[in-house]
């Protein structure tokens, strides 16, 4: 820990914005619950929102492996999210008795997390195996199809998933027995506040999951496999000729990416206590893709920052837009604009209809101003600033020679 801090200290932060981003994210994660508890009346709500944002962050981290590292455009990522969530629903609820199986299964959350990881990863392989011969646009279309098929299967397999109604009353996660221990009971009462119904508990679980996933993804990125992913992204033929088994490397990207959404799905199901096929549509896949691209494809802290910002815009700024518009017109003395008259629905409703226009504008502007993403990886930043950088760097190199 000390060594790591020193390394961060010694590297010029301007040259390594990633270190800064990691520290900011970690401090933010700790400070956020404290801050909302002090400054707002309904801290629980905000902490819950933050935990939900964490779900998207997990998804973005996973999709980043597929799209950012290996360069495979996956438009059906929500399918794996659905598979993770339904895995939890089937394995940890009373729903089992309503299915042809006839018995209920109540597995602990902590175990299902890993079961779902393997289930989702297997589906990643099942999807990947036949489709990885395809490249670029063709792969995107097939994954798009997969993303549409999976929720549809869950909707139509009435007997097993009770269709559109979804599966509800999923088990609430419990602390494993070894944490509960004697100290959680009455005499000591050290952990009593930490029931898993508490939003803060979910927040903590999410934080732990995220830390775990970031460490693992970072390790992968800096490993033999990470290099192989990059090589495949850059030039598949050359990678193969250098001894990289491109098929298995790409399959691994799919499987590992899917594993993350297995995690995310389980957590999502447990927290909401409800899964329904409507929650895993195309818009989820696209939202996660936007988070990855806008944050900085291929760069882990970039993707995390991107997912927070996009989540903030979609789930907080946009829904608040009508209220904001009304407040603005009232403040500048045009209160009559807030009233509806004839075809005009009033500024609030009007703004709410324009929500996605605003979202689109934000996206277009961000991409115009920062095509490489908010916090891009070194490679991506280079790829998108070709001409200019090339000259300067070559000059440097020559200077070194002379």
């Amino acid at each position, binding site marked *: 820990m000390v060594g790591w801090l020193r390394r961060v200290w010694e590297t010029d932060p301007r040259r390594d914005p990633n270190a800064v981003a990691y520290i900011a994210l970690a401090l933010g994660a700790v400070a956020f619950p404290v801050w909302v508890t002090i400054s707002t009346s309904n801290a629980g709500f905000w902490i819950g929102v933050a935990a939900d944002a964490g779900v998207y962050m997990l998804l973005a981290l996973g999709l980043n492996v597929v799209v950012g590292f290996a360069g495979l455009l996956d438009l059906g990522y929500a399918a794996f999210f659905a598979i993770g969530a339904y895995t939890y629903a089937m394995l940890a609820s009373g729903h089992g008795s309503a299915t042809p199986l006839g018995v209920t299964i109540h597995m602990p959350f902590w175990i299902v997390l890993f079961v779902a990881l393997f289930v989702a990863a297997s589906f990643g392989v099942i999807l990947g195996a036949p489709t990885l011969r395809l490249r670029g646009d063709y792969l995107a279309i097939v994954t798009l199809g997969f993303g549409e098929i999976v929720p549809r299967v869950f909707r139509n397999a009435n007997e097993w998933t009770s269709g559109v109604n979804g599966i509800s009353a999923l088990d609430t996660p419990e602390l494993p027995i070894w944490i509960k221990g004697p100290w959680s009971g009455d005499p000591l009462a050290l952990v009593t506040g930490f029931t898993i119904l508490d939003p803060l508990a979910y927040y903590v679980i999410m934080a732990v999951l995220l830390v775990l996933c970031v460490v693992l993804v970072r390790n*992968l990125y800096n*490993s033999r496999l990470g290099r192989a992913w990059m090589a495949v992204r850059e030039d598949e*033929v050359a990678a193969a000729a*250098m*001894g990289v088994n491109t098929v298995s490397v790409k399959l691994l990207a799919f499987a590992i990416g899917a594993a993350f959404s297995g995690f995310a799905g389980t957590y999502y199901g447990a927290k909401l206590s409800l899964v329904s096929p409507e929650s895993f549509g195309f818009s989820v896949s696209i939202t996660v893709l936007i988070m990855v691209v806008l944050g900085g494809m291929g760069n882990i802290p970039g993707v995390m920052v991107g997912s927070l910002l996009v989540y903030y815009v979609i789930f907080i700024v946009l829904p608040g837009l009508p209220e904001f518009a009304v407040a603005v017109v009232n403040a500048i003395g045009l209160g009559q604009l807030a009233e509806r008259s004839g075809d005009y629905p009033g500024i609030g409703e009007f703004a709410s209809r324009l929500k996605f226009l605003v979202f689109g504008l934000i996206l277009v502007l961000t991409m115009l101003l920062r095509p490489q993403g908010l916090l891009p990886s070194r490679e991506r930043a*280079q790829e998108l600033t070709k001409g200019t950088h090339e000259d300067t760097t070559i000059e440097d190199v020559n200077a070194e*020679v002379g």
Partner: protein
Amino acid sequence: MSDATAGPVLRVESVTKRFGGLVAVDEVSFDVQRGEIFALIGPNGAGKTTLFNGITGIFPPTSGRIVFEGRDITGSKPHEVAEIGIARTFQNIRLFEYMDALDNVRLGQHCRMDAKLWDSLFKTPRERREEAATIERAMELLRFVGIERYARSYARNLPYGGQRRLEIARALATGPRLLLLDEPAAGFTPQEKVELMSLVHKIVEQGITVFLIEHDMRVVMGISRRIVVLDHGEKIAEGTPEQVRGDKRVIEAYLGKQN
């Protein structure tokens, strides 16, 4: 193993490659002996690179056999061919442009590494040791081809000659016993060509057989022990540089028929 080391390193047996109606390589056969520098020459479009692609599994031949150290590798996948011990460079440089030179060479060591997914995920001591070793080996190879000062530059930012050398270093990193060089001296100045020839000699000294395609006659005649000449996909001559230089069909192929 004695069988594998005694015979030719590479045996190309009546290899044919058709693209639709076009016969790019037509019933070509030859042997490459261990430890020699063997050259494949011919006018543009003679099928030289097609033959390389056939050997390395990128476009497997339509018919015929490719035997490496007594083992039939016809139809093997490119990564299998690399694992077996054949590495190559490309005519139009195909580096991983946005990886630095060091990582390009480390990638070349991919198929010689043992770290499993588990090791990579949890950075096991074994994995750390292996990664450290690959960095050391990569630096060694960069020094060997003489571009260690570019270790941390993006491959695309290297000067042209440096990129060609980096491709050779990356190929050597796969630990080959046979190295295929596709026009390694293309676009080089005379001085660079001389340096390249000495590099090729250094590679052969390490016990690696070199099989190269080259256009520059001075380079080919200067370093190769034996030469095969292709024209319109057919083998028209094979022999020592002197034999090939005097061959009527070779002169015709290059200069046209004399009426």
